């Protein structure tokens, strides 16, 4: 016990085994609250699990302000949060069961909303009177946020920031809730119930609250937790939150669907579509998962929404909000899909490209996602290679993906003004060794059929370099949304580019070449 306490307190970033985390694990600036909507106790600093700027940029309207007048703030907060939870639930059930009936969608949504009410009084983010942004922590600090994701059972997810990020949190929690939802339909306590949907909700919640083995706990009045089940039933049937939510159909500008897929960095959704048939000049459109800027009635697109700021290199943007269009609406218009590497480097001349080296001018937190959970600290003076980048906002905030100490994650590289104080671009030959070759390294071809030498990245084939051949890397470059990596090499007097695997979603380099060293 003593050693466990000491180990956690002295080295909080050393991840213990999947065992009992300490009560109020990584809970800084703990503050109480009240058993009422939005302020359930306790609350701990949110930045223990992610960067506050992500919450302020993406979820500002779902932060409960302790300094605002209480009752109006509660009304405002619940209206906003109800819209988000409702949308998330409806999007989710149709993902899992596209054939879901109207009754199932309604019951599922009711179940999720009621679960959030019981678990936390719909409490996630709160700005307390000390000015800090905090997150709700229940069950002696083990339960995180609105759906009380438990850090004993879901430690890796909590550490990565999944519980901290509202939409990731809801998605992850609904994944668990759905397991109970699905199991419930075959249980006699549901099949024989007078009110099938109500029984199914109660069963799914009991499984969520106590584990899959407890799916029929609610039908056993002798259960240790029968009072919890009765309380949930009251919440489910009385919907007390309707006293605070004046418009149950209120819309949210939070792009719930986009965030469920991309986790971070989605643009707010425009409230209305100016014209469903004619795209507006200099406006952003979300079409079939791609993000496009309309210029001269042409859709200039990037494959992933996170690269949308790079589209500014094509001209001014009239509105930051995104209009949702279907592929059918856009079918009549020309669409160009831009390569993110070429587009973003032309937009931001100081962006450090994939493959280049970066020297750390200060110790920087390595995060699972650009704004998410901490994986460790990269020390000052470390030199690593860039594996991915992300630009955010007109301030030019930049994030680079690197590999350090056996982990891959993102580090913040400053903005347009401050970037030179965070990282400096250096030749990759100074970088630590990794699966990615540095300029000057020799590599051995691993791919069984060899690798084609091309006149440019993805260009015309000059010859095929056979398996086991050794070549020297002269330069690195990347293309496409998956960060396909190319090495410039010379083989049998011909100089060209070889494809050596993609860096996203996972490192595919080891299956193509082996880095032998200089």
């Amino acid at each position, binding site marked *: *016990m*003593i050693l466990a*306490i000491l180990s956690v307190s002295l080295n909080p970033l050393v991840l213990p085994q*999947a065992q*009992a985390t300490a*009560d*109020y694990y990584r809970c800084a600036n703990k503050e*109480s609250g*009240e*058993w*009422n909507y939005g302020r359930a*106790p*306790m609350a701990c600093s949110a930045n223990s699990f992610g960067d506050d700027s992500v919450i302020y940029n993406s979820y500002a309207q779902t932060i409960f302000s302790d300094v605002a007048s209480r009752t109006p703030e509660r009304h405002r907060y619940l209206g906003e949060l109800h819209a988000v939870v409702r949308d998330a639930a409806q999007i989710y059930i149709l*993902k899992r069961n596209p054939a879901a009936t109207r009754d199932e969608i309604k019951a599922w949504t009711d179940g999720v909303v009621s679960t959030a009410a*019981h678990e936390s*009084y719909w409490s996630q983010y709160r700005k307390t009177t000390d000015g800090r942004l905090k997150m709700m922590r229940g*069950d*002696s600090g083990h*339960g995180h946020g609105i759906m009380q994701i*438990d850090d*004993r*059972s879901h430690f*890796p997810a909590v550490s990565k920031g999944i519980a901290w990020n509202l939409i990731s949190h809801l*998605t*992850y929690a609904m*994944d*668990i809730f*759905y*397991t109970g939802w699905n*199991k419930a339909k075959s249980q006699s306590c549901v099949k024989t119930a007078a009110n099938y949907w109500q029984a199914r909700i109660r069963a799914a919640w009991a499984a969520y609250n*106590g*584990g*899959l*083995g*407890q799916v029929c706990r609610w039908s056993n009045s002798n259960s*240790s*937790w029968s*009072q*919890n089940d009765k*309380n949930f039933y009251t*919440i489910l049937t009385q919907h007390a939150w309707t006293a605070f939510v004046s418009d149950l159909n209120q819309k949210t500008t939070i792009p719930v669907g986009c965030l*469920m*897929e991309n986790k971070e960095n989605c643009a707010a959704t425009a409230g209305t579509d100016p014209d469903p048939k004619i795209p507006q000049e200099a406006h952003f459109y979300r079409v*079939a*998962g791609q993000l496009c800027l309309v210029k001269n009635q042409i859709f200039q697109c990037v494959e*992933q929404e996170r690269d949308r700021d790079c589209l500014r290199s094509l001209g001014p943007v009239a509105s930051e909000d995104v209009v949702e269009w279907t592929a059918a609406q856009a079918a009549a218009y020309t669409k160009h899909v831009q390569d993110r590497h070429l587009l973003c480097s032309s937009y931001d001349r100081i962006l450090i490209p994939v493959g280049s080296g970066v020297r750390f001018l200060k110790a920087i937190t390595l995060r699972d996602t650009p704004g998410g959970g901490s994986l460790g600290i990269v020390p000052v003076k470390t030199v690593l290679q860039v594996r991915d980048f992300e630009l955010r906002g007109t301030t030019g905030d930049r994030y680079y993906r690197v590999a350090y100490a056996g982990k891959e994650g993102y580090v913040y590289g400053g903005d347009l003004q401050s970037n030179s104080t965070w990282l400096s671009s250096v030749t990759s030959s100074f970088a630590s060794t990794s699966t990615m070759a540095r300029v000057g390294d020799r590599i051995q071809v691993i*791919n069984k*059929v060899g*690798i*084609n030498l091309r006149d440019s990245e993805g260009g015309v084939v000059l010859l095929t370099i056979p398996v086991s051949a050794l070549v020297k890397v002269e330069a690195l470059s990347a293309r496409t949304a*998956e960060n396909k990596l190319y090495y410039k090499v010379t083989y049998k007097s011909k100089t060209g580019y*070889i494809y*050596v*695997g*993609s860096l*996203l*979603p*996972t490192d595919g380099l080891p*299956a*193509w070449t082996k880095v032998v060293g200089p």
Partner: protein
Amino acid sequence: MRKSSLLVLAVVLLCAAMLYKKSHSDLAENSAQDFSALTEEKNLHKESAKTNSEAASKTATERAPAAAPSMAVGATDVDKAKNKLDMLAACLQSQSCNYPQTDPHSYAFAVNHDWQEVLKSLAAYTASHPEEHEKITALARESMLNPDGHVQEAALDLFAKMPTDPKNLNVILTGLSDNSADPLIFQQASAELQRYSGGSEDAKVQGFLEQSLVSGAQYVSEQAAIVARNFITAKNVENYRQILKSLPDGSAKARNLRSSLDDYEQHLSGG
């Protein structure tokens, strides 16, 4: 023991005691807030918290606790391990063993933690006792049907040390269906499923992967699309292309599956 060492030990113990006391005084303060007079619905939540603390006090005195199984590893005997697991299974069923019930999750977490420890002790034992593989495999199968991710993690580790067996695969697929929201277990299990792909059980493996991709949990389906690259072959690549067409545009799983398919094709063509 030197005086300085005693002093250090005393300081350490004092710090631990202070931390322990602080955490419990915070809980007491919370309980006081819990029971202040508020609206009826607020009382529902407070009653849940009250139930939690009442159940915790019952554990020590009013329940008839079953003895928690000894976790001493020592020279692990498979039969002893089975006895321990039987006791733990009974504990899960009865919910009345001497494990903490401070909240709805604490009891199962503690029981399953001990379950996982028993399996971990068997993992070390396995390599040097091939004559016990049949019994160990039986325990792994039973454990895989426990939907707790930590127990399944240890069970999968045992399966990986054993020869393949269609009965093992069936149990693994059933266990994964019960713990269908766990992307880490899915990732670990995919390495085990690879041992069965291309063989007589290939159809089961491919069917499970397809289901995970198309209608699985969000985080699991994203992981399934990534591991798919290890399962794509000339025989099934067209099926995966059709699956990709059916996935929502812009979804993470579609992106990941597209990348897996591209990776397969690039490897064949030389990039």
